[in-house]
């Protein structure tokens, strides 16, 4: 019984204005690039590669923001242009693709797609709804809390893959608009992911490329502020939507009458799924010292679960089932990432991102406090516009240089890395393309008939992101920089 | 395999391979056991092959034979991008109805005479197979074939038989025609799209003609249909098969662009994966023109869903498994043995490669076989100090053996199984042994022709 939710009226002029604003921001970056770019006589058609890459990059983002085309097509075509114009070779383009992220995404999508067959997520939905006595705001708050906690220990993408289908079932049953729920979960997933090394890709990158930052450091230094930010994010959500949310007593009674135990369709599959999920979690938690990266863990876990799920079937059935689960993977999201990674590799290759980061450092004049604050805000704003993984990967060697140049001890350098982590993770909340989890939620919402508009999300999420960064700034200042 | 490993141990000169892995075991032993187990499971067909390959690949990393970085470096993304791109392009193009049009057109062109239809449908299958993958081609041609044989009330087996053979023979002609060629084309830097056309396409028509002769002797000369039945086929309106003329034009435009990219892209630094993926994205955009965003997203999602992801991930797992045995030094060892037994003679090696790969491909899937053979042959070429021109004969032997060998049995190639599956559901079961009895001698005939061609042009 799908709820018929009227789509919010779209304000075309506002969209055009915001798109032209974003375009003018990119244009000023391009001018900066044009000023600093070294002359390269061997460039294609005699054009500076930095300018060319910048134009492809800007066009790609303008088309993604404008939402005129499917974003996977846009990103792939822009990535193809990066190779076609000679900015990158195919080898360099492939090297720019983060296959660890892709493998992790595909593997977890497969595991979730098999696990959901057991009915455990429907069980969770019914359980959570009844636990909150089927009150919409109670369910929203409870699901946000669960999302944040799970995000800290699973990656954000996995968490939202677990929670969003559950949420859509509940909002459908209650006949309430799913957007505030999905919005709250996107924010909670990025905030929760900030708390641990494995919570968010920027943290994984920092944890593995900075020798003196370990798993426990993230818990000690980042988990406290993540809890505060989560609490304060719920306030505007309550003001915007929560206080007006209602469900009819009949709808609530229907939800309360559901028997969550009946939701479990296949107890044996549930056990197999829980076994594999536990293995995969253990692999994420303890695999790193053994050289096991998330993509290996997730894809091997997925293949194992598919084999366990297939036991006792005929070969033809086995092949059909495996084919079906691979079909459930969000391939358009995966290929959006592929294209985006290539586009970012293109601008990175021409030195444009580095130029941007250096410019921030120059402006701060070598003052450590200023640099930390600049890193926090720069990464926050950048992560809201571009994917934070390539950005953080570029920032890490630059910050290593800064730490060396300033002669800082590991302990003194810590705040710089926390600035990067907080900025990049929380900054992901700034727009719909700010973090992987956002895109995954948008993809799922789209497939279930509740598309999330880029600009609608931006209008709500960007101010809340700024609020969280202001809080992080205060925290960094009080704890480290005073 | 295991006793072979125990006797020979780790060869000297494998500097960067870990000699010991998890639990202090010998790396080569672990890699060899995983490799052998993986092959056994694939041949035994107890599990889905993508699962088997992915788990074996995962175990290569878990046991420490490879780290994830090395595993990813072992995956040939050029092959994957090319496969995915072409699958997307075909899945959009077929919506236009052009393939049904071609099949009906050729039936009417043959004036609905059974033998003429068989020959023309076979030719259409061969030409399409050269440009699309074989499985897609037979999936497009076989259903229409069954409609026609049904109308003509002739047994469909000779038609399906010819289409299976012609799809594998036609696929031999180009880089994109068959997975073994895609693998060779993307993992041997000095072999490009045009080389396949220059070196393999000439022999393909000869093999096609030589295959038609026994088919005519066995079935063709006895085929007949009543005038009424032939009239029913002539009444088919092939123009009605074209569902979307605009899409047809867009598809042909993108297909032409992509073929031009394959042919002339290499000097510009354009690899097949870039060409195919960009072409696919372009066709998806063109196909979406005039739709609203939600419909666009649905259409793109739909077409990505049509990609054979289990095949793609079978490749992913297999590449990692092969990277594992390569890293552990096992493939170097095999290359040394090949050199040792052949006495370093190129003609002997190429001949052995041709016949071994054809017989192996008739029994097992040719994809894992070719994926394993490529690094072995690279090592052989390197150790013999062959120039690129001298090495060509060996690569063509591998391509011809692996592609044509797929005709040797019903399980020799994916396209064979797809046809058999479809025929069975339509109530025309193809028996394994019947097919073997007809196809194996014809496969041997084609390999003999290939052998003569290689000898005359490269080895003599």
């Amino acid at each position, binding site marked *: 019984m799908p709820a018929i939710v009227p789509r919010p009226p779209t304000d075309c002029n506002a969209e055009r204005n915001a798109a032209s604003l974003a375009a003018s921001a990119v244009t000023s970056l391009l001018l900066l690039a044009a000023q600093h770019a070294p002359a390269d006589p061997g460039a294609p058609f005699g054009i500076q590669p930095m300018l060319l890459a910048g134009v492809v990059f800007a066009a790609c983002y303008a088309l993604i923001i404008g939402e005129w085309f499917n974003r996977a097509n846009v990103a792939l075509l822009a990535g193809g242009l990066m190779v076609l114009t000679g900015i990158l070779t195919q080898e360099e383009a492939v090297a720019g693709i983060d296959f660890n992220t892709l493998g992790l995404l595909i593997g977890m999508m497969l595991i979730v797609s098999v696990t959901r067959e057991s009915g455990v997520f429907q069980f969770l939905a019914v359980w959570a709804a009844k636990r909150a006595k089927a009150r919409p705001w109670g369910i929203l708050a409870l699901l946000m809390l669960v999302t944040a906690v799970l995000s800290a220990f699973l990656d954000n993408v996995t968490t939202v893959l677990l929670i969003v289908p559950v949420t859509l079932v509940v909002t459908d049953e209650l006949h309430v608009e799913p957007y505030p729920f999905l919005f709250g979960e996107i924010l909670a997933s990025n905030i929760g992911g900030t708390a641990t090394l494995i919570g968010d890709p920027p943290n994984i990158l920092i944890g593995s490329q900075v020798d003196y930052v370990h798993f426990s450091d993230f818990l000690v230094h980042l988990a406290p502020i993540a809890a505060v930010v989560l609490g304060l994010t719920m306030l505007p959500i309550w003001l915007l939507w929560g206080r007006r949310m209602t469900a009819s007593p009949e709808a609530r009674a229907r939800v309360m009458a559901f028997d969550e135990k009946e939701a479990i369709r296949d107890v044996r599959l549930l056990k197999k799924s829980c076994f594999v999920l536990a293995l995969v979690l253990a692999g994420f938690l303890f695999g790193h010292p053994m050289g096991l990266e998330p993509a290996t863990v997730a894809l091997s876990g997925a293949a194992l679960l598919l084999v366990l799920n297939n036991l006792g079937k005929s070969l033809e059935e086995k092949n059909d089932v495996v084919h079906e689960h691979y079909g459930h993977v969000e391939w358009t999201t995966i290929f959006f990432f592929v294209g985006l990674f290539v586009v970012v590799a293109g601008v990175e290759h021409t030195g444009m991102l580095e130029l941007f980061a250096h410019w921030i450092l120059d402006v701060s004049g070598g003052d450590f406090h200023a640099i930390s604050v600049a890193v926090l805000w720069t990464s926050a704003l950048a992560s809201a516009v571009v994917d934070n993984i390539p950005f953080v990967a570029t920032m890490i060697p630059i910050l290593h240089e800064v730490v060396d140049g300033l002669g800082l001890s590991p302990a003194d350098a810590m705040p710089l890395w926390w600035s990067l982590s907080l900025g990049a993770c929380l900054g992901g909340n700034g727009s719909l393309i700010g973090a992987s989890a956002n895109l995954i939620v948008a993809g799922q919402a789209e497939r279930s008939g509740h598309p999330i508009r880029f600009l609608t999300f931006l209008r709500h999420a960007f101010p809340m992101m700024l609020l969280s960064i202001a809080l992080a700034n205060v925290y960094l200042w009080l704890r480290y920089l005073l | 395999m295991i006793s072979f490993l125990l006797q020979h141990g780790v060869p000297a000169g494998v500097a960067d391979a870990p000699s010991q892995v998890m639990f202090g075991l010998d790396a080569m032993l672990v890699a060899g056991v995983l490799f052998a187990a993986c092959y056994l499971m694939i041949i035994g067909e107890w599990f889905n092959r993508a699962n088997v390959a992915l788990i074996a690949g995962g175990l290569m990393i878990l046991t420490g034979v490879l780290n994830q970085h090395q595993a990813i470096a072992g995956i040939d993304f050029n092959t994957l991008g090319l496969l995915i791109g072409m699958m997307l392009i075909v899945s959009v193009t077929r919506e236009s109805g052009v393939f049904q049009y071609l099949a009906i057109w050729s039936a009417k062109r043959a004036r609905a005479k059974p033998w003429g239809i068989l020959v023309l449908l076979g030719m259409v299958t061969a030409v399409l197979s050269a440009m699309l993958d074989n499985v897609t081609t037979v999936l497009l041609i076989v*259903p229409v074939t069954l409609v026609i044989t049904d109308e003509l009330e002739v047994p469909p087996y000779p038609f399906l038989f010819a289409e299976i053979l012609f799809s594998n023979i036609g696929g031999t002609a180009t880089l994109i025609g068959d997975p073994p060629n895609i693998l060779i084309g993307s993992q041997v830097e000095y072999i490009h799209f045009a080389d396949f056309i220059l070196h393999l396409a000439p022999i393909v028509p000869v093999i096609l003609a030589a295959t038609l002769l026994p088919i005519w002797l066995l079935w063709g000369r006895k085929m007949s249909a009543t005038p009424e039945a032939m009239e029913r086929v002539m009444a088919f*309106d*092939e123009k009605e*098969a074209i569902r979307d003329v605009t899409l047809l034009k867009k598809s042909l435009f993108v297909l032409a662009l992509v073929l031009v990219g394959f042919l002339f892209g290499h000097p510009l630094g354009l690899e097949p994966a870039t060409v195919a993926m960009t072409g696919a994205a372009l066709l998806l955009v063109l196909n979406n023109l005039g739709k609203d965003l939600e419909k666009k997203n649905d259409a793109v999602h739909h077409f990505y869903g049509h990609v054979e992801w289990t095949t793609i991930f079978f490749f992913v797992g297999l590449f990692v498994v092969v990277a594992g045995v390569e890293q552990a030094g096992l493939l170097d060892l095999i290359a040394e043995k090949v050199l040792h037994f052949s006495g370093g003679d190129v003609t002997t090696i190429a001949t052995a490669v041709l016949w071994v790969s054809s017989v192996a491909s008739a029994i097992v899937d040719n994809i894992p076989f070719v994926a394993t053979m490529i690094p072995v042959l690279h090592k052989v070429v390197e150790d013999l100090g062959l120039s690129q021109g001298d090495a060509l004969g060996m690569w063509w032997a591998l391509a011809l053996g692996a592609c044509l060998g797929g005709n040797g049995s019903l399980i020799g190639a994916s396209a064979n199984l797809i046809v058999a599956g479809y025929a069975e*559901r339509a109530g025309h079961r193809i028996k394994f042994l019947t097919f073997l009895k007809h196809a194996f001698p014809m496969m041997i005939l084609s390999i003999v022709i290939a052998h003569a061609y290689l000898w005359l042009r490269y080895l003599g």
Partner: protein
Amino acid sequence: MTCASVMTPDPEVAAPDWTVERTVELLLERRYRSIPVADSDRRLIGVFSIHRLLALSLPMLASEDPESVDRLRWLSDDLEDLRAKLHRHWNRPVSEVMETDVVTVEPDTPLVRAVIALYHTHYNLPVVQADGGRIVGIISYWDVVPRILR
């Protein structure tokens, strides 16, 4: 409400060795949408439906492709041709052409699940015993629709 309370008990069944001709004649005579195929102990082994009958009279290309209404406009067959195709299956045992992957319910299954199943299938829903798989009843549209409306 359970399936047992709305089902038609002890339905007529076809034996697996019945010919297609005999089964089709029974369907037409009784105006059934489908008939369960069961062995001599009334254990369910499949279902033969009007949907299968149409599939047998069409080329497989038409019955397998969900978009074939649009895609097979080139086909010139008339009703006589369809009849000829169906008649080629006339003497086959029904067990060769029936659907074997059949959705079933049990007598104590909640009725809402039968409604979901009827929405997704092309045949009347067999009600079978939990142990032994014997068919004890059948549920059609007309067993549930009046109860939803009322």
